């Protein structure tokens, strides 16, 4: 029997559970559609704000052996330009069956709402609120995702202007992660993405005798993040009833299934595109299917959240 990999993510049907994570491969139609053509069940655009942002100077993204560290600084062309690109992406994605998730951020709850208002015109299947970027802290203060109230306010503000499927992206650095999740769900989130980058961390160059990233600190992603991301998804799935995109360090079928067993509905992949590019989507899907066949598991529903015992 063929294995059915389709999943329902907050009312949106995805051909498979793999999601290109936000900030990976940017926000242009070309690369988003390419990832979908090569197997992603959904693609997330890079987070965009109402006004354009240049981001931090280089170095901004480094591979340090166990994953990436990045402080891109949320560079983006602004919601008005992004809307056009995403509208094109939306159109070109249709034949692939993959959903478009538009990631948005703001510096205030109203900022979130304003950006979503513009981006929504591109008709993405879902909107994701990035309340958890750790790389602009000096500019904006602590991320919303560390505080249940702040997180809820951003979610509410968006809910007031946008009726479609809404995800909120959480931080692995939140000491009260479950409280934040409950707050955003109460405020109207239809699902969660867990997680954004960890830390932040820092790398120092010995010869330069200074931090390498121009922002000095940056968020950790990739393999180093995986066990923490799995724990976050496990905690969240045990606490809230909405679907979760489990993201963080996934680079194999094993890792994706681990996220599903922790309770994720879909699985985000970002740093995993390193070296392999978007070929990772098909490989991970094949590895998942192979394991499911071996273990006589017919559908992901059968194992979703099973690690909760």
């Amino acid at each position, binding site marked *: 029997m063929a294995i059915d990999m389709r999943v329902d993510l907050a009312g949106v049907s995805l051909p498979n559970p793999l999601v290109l994570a936000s*900030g*990976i*491969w*940017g*926000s*242009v139609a*070309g*690369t988003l*559609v*390419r990832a979908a053509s090569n197997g992603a069940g959904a693609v997330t655009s*890079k987070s965009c704000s109402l006004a354009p942002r240049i981001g931090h*100077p*280089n*170095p*901004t*993204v*480094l*591979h*340090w*052996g166990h994953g*990436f560290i*990045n402080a*891109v600084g949320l560079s983006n062309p602004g919601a008005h330009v992004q809307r056009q690109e995403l509208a094109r992406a939306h159109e070109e994605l249709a034949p692939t069956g993959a959903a478009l998730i538009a990631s948005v951020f703001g510096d205030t709850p109203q900022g979130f709402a304003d950006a979503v208002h513009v981006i929504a015109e591109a008709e993405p299947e879902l909107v994701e609120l990035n309340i958890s970027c750790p790389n602009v802290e000096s500019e904006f203060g602590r991320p919303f995702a560390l505080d249940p109230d702040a997180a809820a306010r951003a979610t509410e503000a968006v809910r007031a202007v946008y009726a479609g499927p809404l995800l909120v992206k959480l931080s692995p650095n939140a000491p009260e992660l479950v409280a934040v999740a409950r707050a955003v769900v109460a405020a109207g989130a239809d699902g969660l993405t867990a997680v954004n980058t960890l830390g932040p961390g820092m*790398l120092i*160059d*010995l*010869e*330069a005798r*200074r931090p*390498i990233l121009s922002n000095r600190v940056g968020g950790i992603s990739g393999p180093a993040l995986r066990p923490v991301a799995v724990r976050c998804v496990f905690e969240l799935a045990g606490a809230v009833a909405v679907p979760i995109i489990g993201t963080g360090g996934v680079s194999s079928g094993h890792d994706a299934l681990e996220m599903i067993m922790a309770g994720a509905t879909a699985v985000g992949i*970002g*740093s995993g*595109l*390193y*070296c392999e*590019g978007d070929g990772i989507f098909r490989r991970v899907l094949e590895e998942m299917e192979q394991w499911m066949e071996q273990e006589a598991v017919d559908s992901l529903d059968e194992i979703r959240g099973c690690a909760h015992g």
Partner: protein
Amino acid sequence: MGEAIYRTYRVVARRSEGSVGATLILDGPLQAEPGQFVMVWLPGIEERPLAVMDDDPLALTVRVVGPFTRALAACAPGDRLWVRGPYGRGFPVRGEQALLVGGGSGVASLTLLAKRLMQENGHVRVALGARSSDQLMLPWRFRELGCELLLATDDGSEGLRGTVLDAAEPSLSAGWADVVCACGPEVMLLALARRMEGSDVPLYLSLERSMKCGLGICGNCYCGNRLVCLDGPVFPVQEVLCLLEPPP
């Protein structure tokens, strides 16, 4: 100690490239394919992609266009550079009669290719263009390697008066080359690609895009559905023809 992100080099020699830039010879090798690039970091300034002009020792050629390239071109012997890479897919080393076409800082992408081709006993013709004689980059290097040089300047101050395409034209129309490799401003690449449309001589183009990671992650270097750092910077013309930016 394997944990450092960058390999540090010191500048051993600096040679100015006409009036527009400089070549820096560094104090150690870097194994690279021709056409690959490195990310060069100047702490406190910026990090940018640069072609591997030569591999042993590593050498870089920089054309001044902004703050980073200005700082880099100002480096003196003894100064340090931070390098990661090489990254990307380079030129195939093939062809018995290769025509290389370079403009601007793109010329630096072609020197290592010329060296490899000469090592394999190929014949290499190099067409270089610039606004005027004192802006020509790296002709000395191709001469050193024993390549045949075809020069063109807008003002006729060296070689023929015209563009680099004019310099390449006789070889193209004579069907001399069995492979053509080019790097330079996109309008030049586009013109070359159009000139060669219908020809069955393979044409490889090396593209430049602004980069952040150089590692195929951030998406900054997109060109249509391609990422220049991951899929390129060298592409067979078919892959990118429709993606090249037309002249403004």
